[in-house]
């Protein structure tokens, strides 16, 4: 197995798609719909990477990121953005240590490649 991934997105079709895409890449995926659920899951399970939607209901993507960072300093977190991302928001997430972005407006193949690259980079950085 390549990576164990926690996918956080409020829409089921999006979660399902990621799950299937990652399955093809030999990755195991756990999915959830909200930030609160994600933090709960992270208490009990370990993951290689969290794939976190920047816009979530309830606790926002940025909040979740902050919370994750407090507990797991080195856990790679890749943020998902849609079209029309807010540049201010992106700058803030960089500040709180997000490991990279993928956009839903990118081609799927490109998403997978970019995602894998981010995770690889983050893990290498953590080892240093």
């Amino acid at each position, binding site marked *: 197995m390549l990576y164990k991934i926690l996918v956080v997105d409020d*829409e089921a*079709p*999006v979660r399902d*798609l990621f799950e*299937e*895409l990652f399955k*093809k890449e030999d990755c195991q995926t756990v999915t959830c719909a909200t930030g609160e659920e994600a933090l709960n899951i992270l208490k009990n399970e370990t993951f290689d990477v969290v794939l976190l939607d920047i*816009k979530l209901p309830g606790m926002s993507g940025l909040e979740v990121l902050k919370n994750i960072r407090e507990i797991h300093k080195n856990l790679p977190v890749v943020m998902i953005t*849609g*079209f*029309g991302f*807010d*540049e*201010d928001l992106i700058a803030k997430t960089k500040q709180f240590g997000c490991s990279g972005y993928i956009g*839903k*407006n990118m*081609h*799927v*193949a490109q998403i997978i490649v970019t995602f894998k690259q981010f995770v690889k980079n983050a893990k290498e950085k953590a080892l240093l």
Partner: protein
Amino acid sequence: MGTDIKKILPKLIENAAVMVFYLNHNGDILLCNKKTESVLGLKQADIIGRNWLEVLFRDKKKSIKKNMFKAVMDDSTIYKRAKDFTCHINQRLISWSINPVLDKDNQVEAIALFGQDVTEIKERESSIKNIDDSLKNIFSGIKEYALYVINLDGNITYFGMGSETMLGWSKKDIIFKHVSILRDIATDSLSLEFILEQVRSFGKYETETELVTKNKETIPVILTVNQFLDATGKLSGYVFIAKDITERRKLEYQIFQSEKIAVLGQLSAGMAHEISNPLFVISGRLEMLKQEDFSQKVKDDLVLIADQTDRIRKLVNRILKFSRKSTPLQELIDINEVIEGVLPLIRYNKLPSAKVEIEKYFGKNMPKIKADPDQLQEVFLNILTNAYQSMPGGGVIKIITSNLQNLYAQIQIIDTGIGIPAQHLKNIFMPFFSTKNEGLGLGLSICHNIIKNHNGEIELTSQANQGSTFTIKLPFT
């Protein structure tokens, strides 16, 4: 006292407000009244007995007047007719009346000379004429107001102030025509009768409406109508004052357009975001399906669907660039360099291969501009691409940069292409407006947005079949 003329007449003459002289036919003054004293500055005793010419025109310099007066006198004497003459005596303007007194044989036995001081009257007349002329000058300078008056039948009796300029009719052509000639009654629901009724009831009426010129052009105006009263205070007509608000309308329209664009921007951003998820899912599933084993027909169909989804994605990206709220990057850039940087990029757009020459006229003294270089490049790329596409048979594009009073950089891109017809010009920067068969019509609205975000201005002038000129102004830091 009674009405004994013999007693009253001398009193009348003595106290008249005009000078009265009684001369013999030689011109010697036999009698004069009191008024002569104050005008001539002499006592009656010093006047009587002397020749009138010498008394009135003591000054040798007044010899011309003397001669003229004498000629008039002679004329009157010879032809036995009253004659009139005006001249200055002691800086007062006197209007003279020379009247021969005939005896019973119809011979001139004496001359009655009356002189009225008309100095004040003339001054008043002159003053009124001055005011009149001044008013005419003032009025002729007021171009944005038209003032016209109608009688109770609705016919124009006065057409003043800027009326001729604004409405194109000359006074003599429009006088007594019915005032409805100035409106387009077919489309204008505001009836004259209604307006006049309001004026009769409330004294005045004000409304925003349109007037029609002689050339059938419409002018948006604020129309104020007042009662026109005669000297006895009776309603004798109506006074119309129309203020041309064309400029204000233009401004309102521009603001409205900007607001529309701003709202459109917000809607687009929201929509684009909502579209992300469904588009992502469709795309993703398609990719996965493509890898499955299907008949060639299904595989082909999947490719088609993927292509269309791609189009949607590109469209949404475009819409987003257009609605970008963020303030542009602020770098100090040299506008000539930015434009230079775009030129090689044009070749990589899908352009009809045509002989298009680019002539650069770059201003030398060009201070830096605070701007986002990528965004500016997008603007120039867009405009230059349009210019290329407007000249399928080849042509020349001139790029001119200049320094406007050290305040603005002005960039002009001038092509000699097919141009844009006048009726499209006002919509040219609107999103989704396009004169081409392909493309979304977002390019120029994005350019407009970018330039506005940089506190600049962008304008297009164009003539069908002659070419277009884009003029962009960007403030220096």
